[in-house]
């Protein structure tokens, strides 16, 4: 049976009657079993997915109207709440936790007839760039199982890469949808900050976190965004701006003004194969008649420190809710309340999460608040102003998605700083709140996927997707 690489192809076969939802689900379940060694899923909803597929097939056979995403089989990153299903954020501290409600994004997808096939492995509390910090063990890259899939939405990217589901829903705080998409040769879309409600998303850093789809094509990612996006009474940060048809949006009828990050194609810190692939893509855009110009970001060296100060500070606050009292892991035999908090949290959180909570607590402590936290908020404004200025002259900013292809398991785990640098090109979008998409851009000599990223203007996801289609030459 075909491994489907676009929802358009799935829909065509469903309509033709040569495929049923049940057959699709059975195929994915077989593949999930076959590729179990990749550790992409932490839980598979086999029986439930089969029953839902049967119910959807009956609905279609009876001639009842079906949803926009009828027959799309998806996985959910282990940070999204789905009522009566476990959610663990890749952490031991949420041992035994069952979601009491379904998050808005997931609810909207279900209402359009998706089939949720399982829960996907990720870095603990979405903190990481390699999916090695999960309490469920590392995920492996299907292109080379000795290499990481990227993170934090590693399981979600590998599941699409290996054809274990058609698309995944991840979350992106500093590149957690786009960086693994690049490492796995698939598409990752981070929308504008506030485009998708985060009700039911386990928080990491609230002024950065976005839900985002991972898919085979920009078109499929756009379809998912259309369904998930829009106002929601349960999230006061979500935008009330109307949602447009991102999947069918078109580009303006003129040459595009495309800026590219000079460091992305010149810097020795970027892998040669990635620089070459990026240059070739830029040449092709020039040949197609677009205006393609290099730009330098004065604040490029400040992106990651700004990002890490603010996200660790927000994380130290967000993760204070895990106290061993209301849910999750609780230390045994403790008779004092403060000791109960401390022991439950120390036992439940992994080393990287504890490190980030400590960093954030330090940055927020009275003596250092201004030097770290306020300073980073000021630099954040300067970075946003510089980005706004850039977008008065250009439609898009192009760069490699990552400075290197997928690295080996264990290669960067001993050195947190090296791991943080893997996000150099992806964090800008989160620091300024702009949308960005990562699409495949060939492979290196070893066959490892390479990604290219496009940053777009706020709430212009349609244009971004249309451009990504042109870049990947995939209209649907």
């Amino acid at each position: 049976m075909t491994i489907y690489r676009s929802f358009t192809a799935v829909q065509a076969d469903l309509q033709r009657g040569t495929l049923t939802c049940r057959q699709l689900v059975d195929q994915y379940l077989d593949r999930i079993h076959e590729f179990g060694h990749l550790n992409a899923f932490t839980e598979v909803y086999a029986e439930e997915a089969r029953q839902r597929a049967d119910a959807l097939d009956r609905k279609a056979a009876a001639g009842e109207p079906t949803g926009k995403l009828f027959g799309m089989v998806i996985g959910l990153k282990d940070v999204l709440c789905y009522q009566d299903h476990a959610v663990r954020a890749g952490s031991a501290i949420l041992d035994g936790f069952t979601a009491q409600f379904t998050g808005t994004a997931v609810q909207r997808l279900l209402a359009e007839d998706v089939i949720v096939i399982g829960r996907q492995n990720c870095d603990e509390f979405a903190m990481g760039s390699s999916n090695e910090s999960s309490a469920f063990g590392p995920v492996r890259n299907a292109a080379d199982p000795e290499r990481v899939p990227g993170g934090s939405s590693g399981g979600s990217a590998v599941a699409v890469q290996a054809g274990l589901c058609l698309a995944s829903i991840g979350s992106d705080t500093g590149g957690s949808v786009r960086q693994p998409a690049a490492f796995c040769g698939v598409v990752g879309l981070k929308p504008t900050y506030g485009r998708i409600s985060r009700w039911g998303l386990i928080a990491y850093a609230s002024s950065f976190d976005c839900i985002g789809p991972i898919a085979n094509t920009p078109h499929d990612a756009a379809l998912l965004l259309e369904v998930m996006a829009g106002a929601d009474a349960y999230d006061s940060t979500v935008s009330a701006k109307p949602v447009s048809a991102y999947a069918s949006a078109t580009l303006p009828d003129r040459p595009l003004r495309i800026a590219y990050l000079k460091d992305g194609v010149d810097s020795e810190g970027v892998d040669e194969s990635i620089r070459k692939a990026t240059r070739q893509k830029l040449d092709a855009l020039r040949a197609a008649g677009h205006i393609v110009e290099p730009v330098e970001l004065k604040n490029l060296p400040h992106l990651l420190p700004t990002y890490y100060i603010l996200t660790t500070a927000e994380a130290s606050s967000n993760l204070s809710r895990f106290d061993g009292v209301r849910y999750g892991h609780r230390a045994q035999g403790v008779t004092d309340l403060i000791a109960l908090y401390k022991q439950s949290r120390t036992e439940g959180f992994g080393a990287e999460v504890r490190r980030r909570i400590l960093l954030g607590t330090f940055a927020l402590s009275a003596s250092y608040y201004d030097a770290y936290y306020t300073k980073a908020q000021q630099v954040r404004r300067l970075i946003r102003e510089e980005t706004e200025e850039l977008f008065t002259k250009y439609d898009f900013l192009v760069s490699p998605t990552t400075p290197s292809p997928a690295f080996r398991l264990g290669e960067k785990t001993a050195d947190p700083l090296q791991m943080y640098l893997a996000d150099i090109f992806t964090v800008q979008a989160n620091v300024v709140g702009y949308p960005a998409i990562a699409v495949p851009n060939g492979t290196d000599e070893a066959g490892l996927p390479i990604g290219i990223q496009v940053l777009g203007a706020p709430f212009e996801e349609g244009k971004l997707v249309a451009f990504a289609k042109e870049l990947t030459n995939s209209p649907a």
Partner: protein
Amino acid sequence: MKVDKETLHKIAHLARLEVRPEEEAGMLSSLNEVLTWMEQLNEVDTTGVEPLMHISEELNVVREDAVGEHLSRERALANAPQHDEQFFQVPKVLE
């Protein structure tokens, strides 16, 4: 440097965490390395720059003050490691 052993334990207390003895040296060195790296921001002149606190353009979004659906007590308590029919239970805090 910024974080010595005493500071580390002070921050850990604020964060309601313990530092395991075998992790102390490693945590100290990684925290100091990351904090030194973060200090790159001191190169940036931010005189008179207003801190950017909110990324969303939505301000003061409120809904109608109407009774809506809430999590039932049963569901709210269901995930608690220790609870009775009404409350979360913690070790005794008052003698």
